[in-house]
């Protein structure tokens, strides 16, 4: 749910009583996940400040009056972390004053965002925020010499994100990755061909356990089945991602979209590192929107 905060509503009304010259112009990312509250939310839970992804003025601020967005204020900002990845759970729209006022806030469930809300370094996420305006005539009364009228300006917030995943590239020196996360030193143990889709089993080795944690963060129980036409489908809490496998013949990574990583990742200590196995299932079908 997107909420228009009490502070935001008050700020907008202050514009009409000449109490402020601030505008609604900034977007902020956060990692907190407490439920949105209309009256008590005055800041994001845990604002992200790292990797160049702190609060920023929207690069697009425009008035829209289209069928999709009638009478709306549109703010867009693209965040691209540099030098590290960020994990998004909440997004806020704020005013542009010295002490920005939180106008809009949305919290995402763990599985609502593509790639589980993780934006690796070098990738980007686009935030589109909308404030739609409409009005309803209120009442007008006139008794003797007293004229009282009112009108309501109705403000409806909405928020859309698009985590750009098509460009997830593999870290240098790796031959297999999922959404930009390395399957370190992976060898293909097996490939199962099914109609319209495949399943891969990889055996990997790493001396950095965070490699395993990163893959585990995008893994979930996967249900695999065959549709009535015999094509393989998968379903899971997590959205599909892109598996990339280096092709030595063409010398490019072959991308397999609509893939999911199974959460069963057995790990076996060996020497100074760990062997771990990863199973990836491809679906013939797109995710639901």
């Amino acid at each position, binding site marked *: 749910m997107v909420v228009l905060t009490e502070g935001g509503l008050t700020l907008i009304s202050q514009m009409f009583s000449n109490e402020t010259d601030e505008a609604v*112009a900034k977007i902020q990312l956060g990692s907190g996940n407490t439920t949105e509250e*209309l009256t008590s939310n005055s800041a994001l839970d845990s604002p992200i400040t790292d990797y160049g992804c702190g609060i920023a003025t929207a690069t697009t*601020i425009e*008035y829209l009056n289209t069928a999709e967005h009638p009478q709306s204020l549109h703010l867009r900002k693209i965040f691209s972390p540099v030098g590290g990845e960020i994990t998004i759970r909440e997004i806020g729209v704020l005013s542009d004053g010295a002490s920005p006022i939180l106008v809009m806030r949305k919290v995402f469930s763990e599985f609502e965002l593509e790639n589980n809300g993780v934006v690796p370094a070098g990738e980007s996420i686009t935030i589109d925020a909308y404030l739609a305006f409409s*009005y309803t005539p209120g009442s*007008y009364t006139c008794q003797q010499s007293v004229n*009282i*009228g009112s009108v*309501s300006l109705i403000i409806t917030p909405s928020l859309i994100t698009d985590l750009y995943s098509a460009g997830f590239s593999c870290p240098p020196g790796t031959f297999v990755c999922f959404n930009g996360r390395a399957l370190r030193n992976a060898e293909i143990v097996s490939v199962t061909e099914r109609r319209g889709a495949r399943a891969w089993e990889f055996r990997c080795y790493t001396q950095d356990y965070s490699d395993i944690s990163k893959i585990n963060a995008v893994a979930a129980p996967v249900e695999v089945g065959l549709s009535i036409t015999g094509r393989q489908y998968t379903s899971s809490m997590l959205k599909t991602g892109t598996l990339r496998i280096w092709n030595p013949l063409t010398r490019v990574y072959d991308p397999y979209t609509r893939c999911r990583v199974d959460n069963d990742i057995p790990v076996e200590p060996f020497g100074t590192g760990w062997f771990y196995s990863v199973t990836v299932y491809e679906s013939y079908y797109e995710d639901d929107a």
Partner: protein
Amino acid sequence: MAVTQTVPGLSEIIQRIGGIVPGSGYSLESIKAYTAGWGLIPYIPTVVRTGTTVTATYSENSQTNEYRGSFIYFQIISSENTILTLFETDYSYPSFEGTCLYQMSIAFVRGT
């Protein structure tokens, strides 16, 4: 007495909220009263915000007001004189004598 309640300048209001500046020196002025035929009258209403409701109140003495006979409008007017009409009463010279009170409110509410 009838009234129309329209917001033809909604696009400008939205642009103001987003800080989109269509011209130098643009800003949104307070709600002001306006009379047809006389232009912006010198009586600027008292504008008070209570929570998320902005109310403009204006009194007119029908006995002493030299602009009597005019229609009364309540409008939002930008500093570039763009009219963002919110209320237009078809009120003309009152049928009674004395002070007329005009009180117009904009309530900002959440959509669903």
